[in-house]
């Protein structure tokens, strides 16, 4: 298909199910995908309440009976660690009258008591009891616990939940993204990531998919972030230029990345991925050498951590994690925190400082990304043209040695991969 071919205009038919093959094409997507409330509801069912969604990190509930409020899409979920150390994801809804059983962000509790009629639940969700039990003659107490997310599994501390009883395993869903999580953990001298610095919560008036696409869009940084590249010597700008040897990649399953390692390997300077040098982090460097041996430690410290969007909601951005939470068709919250590497206090301090500067509602970078999300959301409400064009780099898309589609640093290979997976999920629903 010619890149500039006219695509078929779509007359919305509210009575019929959306035709995903018409809305999502090889290098065009229809604007209504970002604005139609019915499509948003369909996505909740087919994506957010069916596939694996990142919920939280085990280090957020380090002790028995710890809990933290999380979410899957707009749904609140309580992530608990039971007395036996197991992790549970509970719906925050009393099975009696629907009241919230938990209203604090985090804490330590062996049980949750609904304030309305005093029903009490263990932190694995089981009903422990209700007042005046003689009022219930033949109630099946085993069926009156808190709702539980059907499948809960963690990979190297990253906890995912799926509300569907059956479907692909977490390993099948993550696929090549597992190696990226391994690489993140390996940047710690103790092989572990911690999520302990607290979250910034940044709300935007935009559809969630604009955020997902933007996370691995290597085309925008030169423009959207020109203001900070101009005044701070960050070294990020050149990674995303037409001269860059970095690549964009589609891992399948909706997972995408900007692989910056070719540029870092060319520089051949440990810690240049973080804009610093090994000399400035002597404690970290020494621990890395001790943990992995000098050769491997050097390779890890040159390559740095990945820039990967794990569909649909976990973005690992070198030094931060973002968790994308859709609220409504035109409202999304990004939860973001600095990654902390176990055993690396000197590096962690810098990661917190850089994260605070760059992201969140006032961040040097993210406030401007947010502005773009909101303006694209306003833009797609215009009727003409109906479509968005994602053809950049299609002619030079190629396969890497593992068979994954790759493009140049600024190409739209990731967006096309996201939409290919999206269409498959929506059609399967």
């Amino acid at each position, binding site marked *: 298909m010619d890149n500039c071919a006219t695509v078929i205009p779509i007359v919305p038919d509210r009575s019929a199910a959306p035709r995903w093959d018409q809305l999502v094409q090889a290098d065009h997507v229809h604007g209504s995908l970002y604005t139609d409330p019915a499509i948003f509801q369909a996505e909740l069912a087919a994506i957010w309440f069916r596939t694996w969604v990142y919920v939280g990190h085990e280090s957020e509930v380090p002790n028995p009976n710890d809990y933290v409020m999380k979410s899957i899409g707009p749904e609140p979920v309580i992530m608990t660690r039971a007395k036996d150390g197991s992790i549970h994801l509970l719906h925050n809804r009393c099975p009696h009258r629907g009241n919230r059983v938990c209203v604090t*962000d985090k804490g330590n509790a062996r049980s949750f008591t609904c304030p309305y009629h005093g029903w009490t639940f263990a932190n694995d969700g089981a009903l422990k009891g209700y007042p005046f039990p003689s009022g219930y003659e033949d109630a099946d107490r085993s069926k009156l616990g808190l709702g539980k997310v059907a499948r809960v599994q963690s990979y190297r501390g990253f906890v995912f939940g799926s509300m569907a009883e059956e479907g692909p395993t977490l390993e099948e869903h993550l696929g090549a993204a597992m190696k990226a999580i391994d690489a993140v953990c390996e940047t710690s001298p103790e092989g572990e990531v911690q999520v302990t*610095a*607290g*979250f*910034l*919560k*940044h*709300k*935007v*008036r935009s559809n969630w998919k604009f955020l997902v696409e933007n996370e691995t869009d290597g085309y925008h940084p030169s423009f*959207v972030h*020109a*203001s*900070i590249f*101009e*005044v*701070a010597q960050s070294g990020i700008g050149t990674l995303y230029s037409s001269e860059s040897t970095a690549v964009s990649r589609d891992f399948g399953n909706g997972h995408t990345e900007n692989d910056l390692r070719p540029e870092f390997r060319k520089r051949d300077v440990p810690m240049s991925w973080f804009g610093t040098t090994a000399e400035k982090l002597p404690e970290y460097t020494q621990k890395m050498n001790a943990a992995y041996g000098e050769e491997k430690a050097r390779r890890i410290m040159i390559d740095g951590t990945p820039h990967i969007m794990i569909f649909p909601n976990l973005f690992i951005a070198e030094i931060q994690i973002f968790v994308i939470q859709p609220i409504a068709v035109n409202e999304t*919250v990004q939860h*973001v*925190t*600095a990654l902390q590497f176990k055993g690396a206090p000197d590096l962690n*301090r810098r990661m*917190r*400082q850089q*994260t*605070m*500067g760059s992201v*969140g*509602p*006032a961040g*040097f970078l*993210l*406030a*401007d990304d*947010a*502005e*773009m999300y*909101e*303006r694209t959301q*306003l833009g797609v409400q215009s009727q003409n043209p109906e479509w968005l064009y994602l053809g950049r780099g299609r002619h030079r898309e190629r396969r890497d040695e593992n068979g994954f589609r790759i493009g140049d640093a600024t190409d739209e290979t990731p967006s096309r991969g996201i939409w290919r997976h999206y269409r498959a999920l929506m059609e399967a629903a």
Partner: protein
Amino acid sequence: MAMTPEQRATLEDVTQFIYREARLQDEHAYDAWEALWTDDGVYWVPANGEGGDPEQEMSILYDNRSRIALRIRQFHTGKRFSQTPRSGLRRVVSNIEVIGDDGKEVRVCSNAIVFESHVRGDTIWASRNEYTLRREGEGFRMARKKVVLVNNGTALWSMAFLI
């Protein structure tokens, strides 16, 4: 407890200083605002309540003096899109109280309500502000400003203007 004439004079002076700071912020007078800071100034907007230890926990803003300067330079590029066009801003500052004065530095608290008009829509921000103002010559400079937003535990819209 009645204030001494000296305390009244200090309250009047710090009130004028805080009003002036508010006006410079409302009018995006970045350079004049930056000049209010001491060389060791710290500008802190905690997330998630009072903010605990900013050296351990994420804050919305935790700028030292050089990062404040970077923020101003970013505005001046004309490419800070979250402030292009600039937010329309007006703030009301009230409840100004001197809570400490050692002769060199005055600690002051105030409440602030900020009305912001942005491309996205209108937003009202509310905060408790804490200042450490250092006496310099005839006037003051800001050594510390902490802005505790009432809703900082919830998800916030972008806030790229100076709060």
